């Protein structure tokens, strides 16, 4: 395609692409995101393409491979247009029937439809599925409309028209005013008002400035950014361009964690295509704005999600944070003013420019505007990516959208905000998804990762899990984080192994307080949150571990024993083979015995037993 030299060129191209799009009525939309790829979607996609050719449909039916739809557990997913028919859990063998019946004649194949786990009904369209119905999918819904490897799709949908609007008719100060008025706050965890950040960066005097997209997404259990970057990379590019124009930057970086190979690939393709069209480079579309972007890969370090560590990493150094007494908007990458924002923050910018700050601010609560993507995972029926208006109560997300508990268990808590966040008990589920309200409750919205826990999760074990994670990821530079987390973990390990004493709780609290006040960076400062929130809301579990040497959830291996229920056991011998410690002995067709000396309570036998005959005491 020839380079676009003027705004007019872009609009002409857009018209042509829209025309072409309108001509196609029959489509098979297949999800090619990482989640579906894990479910072998590539085989399904190959099968569909093969069948189209075989059935002579490849000229009249378009196949669109999109990014992540967010409903990963139901993958591989397909949507048939016209009719908007939603099929899930597809196998390559289904391709033939899907095309010959649904695509050719609109006939719906019942067994491929989604079954609502709560009502048992089969549902035909995405928007009727309760999981989707409760959401406001401003960002996520775009993913099904485009192939992330096609800049043409993005342009046909109106992409880069926000960029044209700002270059044609908005001065930088006006852009910043709009962003401020929208109330957009950082979606990566900090929740810092984006407009204010841009304003401060604009004021910093320098010829050289940078914009950075933080796609490090280190919070385990969070994959919102992966979804947006994999599925709609141009939306981030456009957002960054608008920001760069506003603050006076000519260069940007998208820093992607290398554990997301597909996001890296799609970002690189997007940049390449934008360069070819003249949407990156010198004097874009004939304007005075020159801008280009580099894709930089992370090296595998959670701490590189911290802004100064990320910048050090871009500079080719170890990702060790440095003090932020002088903000990075003044002294950032290469000591120049830098605006660093999260993927989701950048992705929201084009719509704010096009639809206006009032539109964005009309959603959400007083202090938290717009929508937020949450990664809802854990012990609930519907797991996946959810986008809701800020201010939505947790209860709605967990029970209405998430569908409630699995296996008839009782939901106990939700962990929000990753390792920097905290656990909130079910009694607090009326609290809204709101930066300030959740922070006051001791937790935080964070990046949006929400892990639901039920009675089978031990909250002390959860605190231990996060401390172990943070200890692994700490850069080790400062004493409170390096030694403080280590000692907190030592104490919690004592508690989970039956050596806890009541005095240790007071010590744990004092140490947690010291670490959060003296640590050099955000990782250390928030490291104590999982401990502090579980102490605040689940004190009984700590007390049980310390005073009665019991783990109520049956998780902490030192405090439980396994036993085989002879009534349920069908003597299949699977557990004997499965045990890696040789702790189960038995003759064929006889109920086996567990040797308590050798049994490590690792749980492997329990997960293999089909009769659920191994009990936890």
């Amino acid at each position, binding site marked *: 395609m020839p380079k676009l030299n003027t705004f007019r060129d872009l609009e002409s191209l857009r018209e042509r692409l829209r025309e072409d799009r309108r001509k196609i009525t029959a489509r098979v939309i297949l999800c090619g995101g990482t989640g579906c790829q894990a479910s072998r979607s590539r085989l399904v996609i190959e099968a569909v393409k093969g069948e189209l050719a075989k059935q002579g449909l490849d000229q009249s039916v378009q196949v669109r491979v999109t990014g992540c739809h967010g409903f990963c557990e139901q993958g591989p997913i397909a949507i048939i247009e016209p009719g908007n028919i939603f099929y899930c859990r597809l196998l390559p063998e289904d391709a033939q029937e899907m095309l010959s019946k649904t695509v050719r004649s609109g006939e719906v194949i019942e067994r491929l439809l989604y079954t609502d786990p709560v009502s048992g009904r089969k549902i035909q369209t995405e928007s009727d599925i309760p999981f989707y119905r409760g959401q406001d999918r401003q960002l996520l819904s775009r993913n099904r409309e485009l192939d992330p490897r096609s800049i043409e799709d993005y342009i046909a949908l109106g992409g880069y028209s926000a960029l044209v609007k700002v270059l044609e008719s908005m001065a930088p100060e006006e852009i910043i005013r709009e962003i401020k008025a929208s109330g957009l706050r950082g979606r990566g965890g900090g929740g810092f008002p984006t407009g204010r950040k841009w304003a401060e960066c604009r004021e910093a005097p320098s010829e050289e400035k940078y914009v950075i997209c933080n796609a490090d997404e280190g919070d385990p259990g969070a994959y919102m950014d992966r979804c947006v970057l994999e599925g709609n990379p141009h939306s981030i590019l456009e957002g960054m361009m608008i920001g760069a124009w506003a603050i006076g930057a000519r260069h940007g970086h998208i820093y992607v964690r290398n554990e997301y190979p597909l996001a890296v690939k799609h970002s690189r393709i997007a940049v390449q295509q934008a360069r070819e069209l003249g949407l990156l480079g010198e004097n874009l579309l004939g304007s005075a704005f020159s801008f280009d972007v580099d894709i930089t890969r992370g090296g595998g370090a959670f701490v590189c999600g911290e802004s100064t560590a990320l910048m050090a990493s871009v500079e080719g150094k170890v990702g060790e944070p440095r003090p932020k007494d002088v903000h990075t908007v003044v002294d950032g990458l290469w000591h120049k003013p830098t605006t660093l924002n999260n993927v989701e923050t950048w992705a929201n910018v084009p719509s704010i420019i096009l639809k206006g700050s009032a539109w964005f601010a009309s959603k959400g609560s007083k202090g938290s505007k717009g929508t937020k993507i949450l990664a809802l995972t854990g012990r609930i029926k519907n797991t996946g990516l959810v986008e809701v208006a800020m201010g939505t109560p947790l209860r709605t997300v967990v029970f209405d959208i998430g569908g409630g508990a699995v296996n008839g268990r009782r939901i106990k808590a939700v962990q929000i905000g990753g390792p920097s966040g905290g656990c909130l008990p079910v009694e607090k589920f009326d609290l809204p998804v709101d930066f300030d309200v959740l922070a006051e409750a001791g937790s935080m919205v964070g990046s949006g990762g929400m892990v639901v826990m039920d009675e089978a999760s031990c909250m002390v074990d959860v605190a231990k899990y996060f401390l172990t994670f943070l200890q692994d990821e700490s850069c080790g530079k400062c004493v409170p984080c390096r030694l403080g987390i280590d000692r907190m973990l030592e104490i919690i390990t004592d508690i989970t192994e039956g050596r806890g004493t009541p005095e240790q709780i007071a010590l744990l609290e*004092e140490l947690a307080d*010291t670490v959060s006040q003296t640590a050099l960076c955000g990782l250390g400062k928030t490291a104590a949150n999982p401990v502090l929130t579980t102490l605040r809301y689940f004190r009984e579990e700590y007390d049980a571990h310390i005073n009665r040497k019991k783990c109520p959830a049956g998780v902490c291996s030192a405090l439980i024993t396994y036993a085989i229920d002879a009534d349920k056991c069908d003597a299949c011998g699977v557990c004997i083979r499965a045990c890696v410690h040789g702790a189960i002995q038995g003759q064929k067709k006889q109920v086996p015995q567990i040797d308590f000396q050798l049994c490590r309570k690792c749980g492997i036998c329990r997960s293999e037993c089909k009769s659920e005959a191994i009990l936890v005491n």
Partner: protein
Amino acid sequence: MLQYVTINIDGALIRAVKGTSVLDTAIEYGVCIPHLCHVSYLSDFGGCRLCIVEHVVNGRANVTASCTLNVQEGMVIRSNTERIKKLRRNLAELLVAQAPNSRAIQDLALRCGVKEVRYPFRNRNCVLCGRCVRACTELWRARAIGFVGRGKNRRVDYPLGVHPDFCKQCGACVQLCPMTITPCEGPMKPGQERLCGKCESQLLSADQTPDTCGWCKLGEGFSCGRYA
């Protein structure tokens, strides 16, 4: 030409040189702020966090390391509030529990008011203060040692683990290391670690009069910033 700003440390108005840190200024004027990783002729990286102070901004008291905080006109610093003393004490407690076999660390613990150690002692021979690394990097630029690894596995090592021939044998790393001088009563064997605190040093009174440098024993062998 040196430029000056006026800053407020613990109520005293002090004339500070622009471009210097709050810690350097405090040491210059004899205000005792305990520190471990700071060496006056090497760069500061804010690792030990012992030099924390309260920096009052818009009515809020932010805890921050004074070695990496540059002086600004009119800034208000409080170096010895109850909150700061408690935080410092807890940090020093962590350090002495990690490496009790160093006179400097024991003295620092005493200076920071550590009365008891509530963690099991470990007998490590490095506290990762980075003095050696910065000396090697900045004084002789030999780059013969450096920090390697991450988090719990962070350590000081030679390039690829082998003592290089480009080491200039200057001895600066050894001179600056707080672990080279053992406690007065001799090295502590594993199992015999304890909080020392036996000597009647001026360190005990430093807590009461932090605004007057007492030329305490902490300077000997360890080179507190004031002695350098």
